[in-house]
């Protein structure tokens, strides 16, 4: 059995989530758009689920749109608003440590005639508010900044930014895929107009996402998927009822046990990090340690290469950079952005902890790493002596 320290790549489905989904994969199969009783019953249950999600986020029920992934939510928010508001202006702002689903969408919009500012982050991995203020222009229509980064876990000052956006009549979207379930996420407190999250990072299945859209914005968003009137006309397609029921349950659980979860996950992460830094020489943490979500530890093991260490320590499931980039040999754009040492960068691994990890696993993982870092360093020409 591997030790799963890759919860930021994807999480197991919580048994409680699995249980509530089951009937919808079996006897409760009617189409929620059908007007017969079986259809209407499913419709009611689906709308109740929407309410549960809204309640976790401090949103209204009608502000919750179910999508097919976090990536789709990001695309829908950014393209939907850019196209919908293009007559108001064509300037967009984001940061250079966003997830690919955000970055690639902006790159596409650049080709479509939009002007995009990519804000730099400091060496801690955090966007500077003054830089941000300066970047806003007359024709800025949208800002998209992630709440917590997926590689180093750093938390961005989204609340402050959203306030500045509101003062300047600019819309703000935040990608909260990594933040939800690890810190309080409330759209009213944050003041954002749109917010993305994804099921498979919060113990619901892969293939469902949510986009919160401020009621006042719903008329302007251009849908990605046209067709039937599903999701308030913003996303056509027969609803993925089982996963919607599942993600609502996942949200309900977070509402219940966020504090308990973050305490436990943070404890395990800190234990891990403390032992690694103390017991394995020439290691350090990437990104601000004090402004991070509780789940992520991005560690550089000097003199060796991350993927090699992953294979040596194959009992541990973890990541080099983000999972999406594993098919390329390029180092992570996030580590570049925080000015990480270009040599050390190759020795960085991301360990991400979750609800179902335990102390025994963490200790075992450290022992495994210790042994294998040593082995690989013996091979490394970068070590001065053996």
């Amino acid at each position, binding site marked *: 059995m591997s030790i799963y320290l890759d919860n930021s790549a994807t999480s197991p489905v919580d048994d409680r989530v699995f249980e509530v989904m089951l009937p919808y994969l079996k006897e409760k199969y009617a189409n929620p758009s059908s007007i017969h009783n079986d259809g209407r019953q499913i419709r009611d249950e689906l709308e109740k689920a929407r309410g549960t999600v809204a309640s976790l986020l401090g949103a209204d029920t009608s502000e919750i749109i179910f999508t097919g992934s976090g990536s789709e939510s990001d695309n829908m928010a950014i393209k939907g608003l850019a196209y919908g508001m293009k007559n108001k202006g064509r300037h967009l702002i984001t940061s250079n440590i966003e997830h690919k689903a955000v970055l690639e969408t902006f790159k596409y919009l650049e080709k479509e005639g939009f002007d995009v500012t990519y804000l730099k982050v400091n060496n801690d991995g955090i966007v500077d508010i003054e830089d941000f203020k300066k970047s806003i222009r007359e024709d800025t229509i949208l800002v998209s900044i992630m709440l917590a980064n997926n590689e180093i876990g750093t938390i961005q000052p989204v609340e402050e930014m959203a306030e500045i956006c509101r003062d300047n009549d600019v819309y703000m979207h935040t990608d909260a895929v990594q933040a939800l379930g690890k810190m309080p996420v409330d759209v009213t407190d944050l003041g954002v107009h749109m917010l993305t999250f994804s099921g498979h990072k919060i113990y619901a299945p892969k293939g469902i996402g949510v986009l919160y859209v401020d009621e006042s914005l719903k008329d302007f968003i251009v849908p990605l998927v046209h067709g039937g009137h599903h999701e308030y006309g913003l996303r056509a397609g027969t609803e993925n009822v089982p996963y919607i029921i599942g993600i609502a349950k996942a949200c309900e659980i977070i509402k219940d046990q966020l504090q308990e979860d973050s305490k436990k996950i943070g404890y395990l992460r800190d234990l891990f990090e403390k032992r690694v830094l103390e017991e394995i020489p020439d290691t350090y943490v990437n990104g601000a340690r004090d402004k991070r979500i509780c789940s992520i530890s991005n560690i550089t093991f000097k003199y060796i*290469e991350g993927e090699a260490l992953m294979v040596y320590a194959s009992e541990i499931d973890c990541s080099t950079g983000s999972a999406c980039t594993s098919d390329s*040999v390029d180092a992570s754009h996030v580590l570049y952005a925080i000015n990480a040492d*270009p*040599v050390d*960068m190759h020795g960085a691994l991301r360990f991400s902890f979750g609800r179902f990890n335990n102390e025994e696993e963490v200790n075992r993982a450290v022992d495994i790493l210790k042994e294998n870092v040593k082995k690989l360093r013996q091979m490394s020409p970068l070590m001065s002596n053996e």
Partner: protein
Amino acid sequence: MAKGPYSEKVMEHFMNPRNMGEIEDASGVGEVGNPACGDVMKLFLKINDDGVVEDVKFKTFGCGAAIASSSMATELLKGKTVEEILELTNNAIVEALEGLPPAKIHCSVMAEEAIEAALKDYYERVGKDPKIVDEIKEKIKNKETNQEV
């Protein structure tokens, strides 16, 4: 061995690298790669008076493919003459490893380059013009392309 990105042979060499280490009194040392690019390969050759490789060792910073390529290269080098060594291309290494993923072919190229660099160093140390290495390589390449035609 568990199913991974690599062939069983690669994994075997990666997990149990042969001839890892350094040679104090090497006859030639080659170092290629750039730590900023994530890979450095250092090859130590011990060549006897008959021009035969008596001992060979490596140190590598890089991924599994780089380490396996180094290890395989050392195995292929042992007992060969200087001329035979130069015939050793990255393709031979990839073949001996039973294949590498496309993104990792350059790791085997690095091994070939490390061998070249070590030989040049050897030629220099014995007072020969290291350019010979390039010339021989050129000849081998030509021969190969002729064969293909």
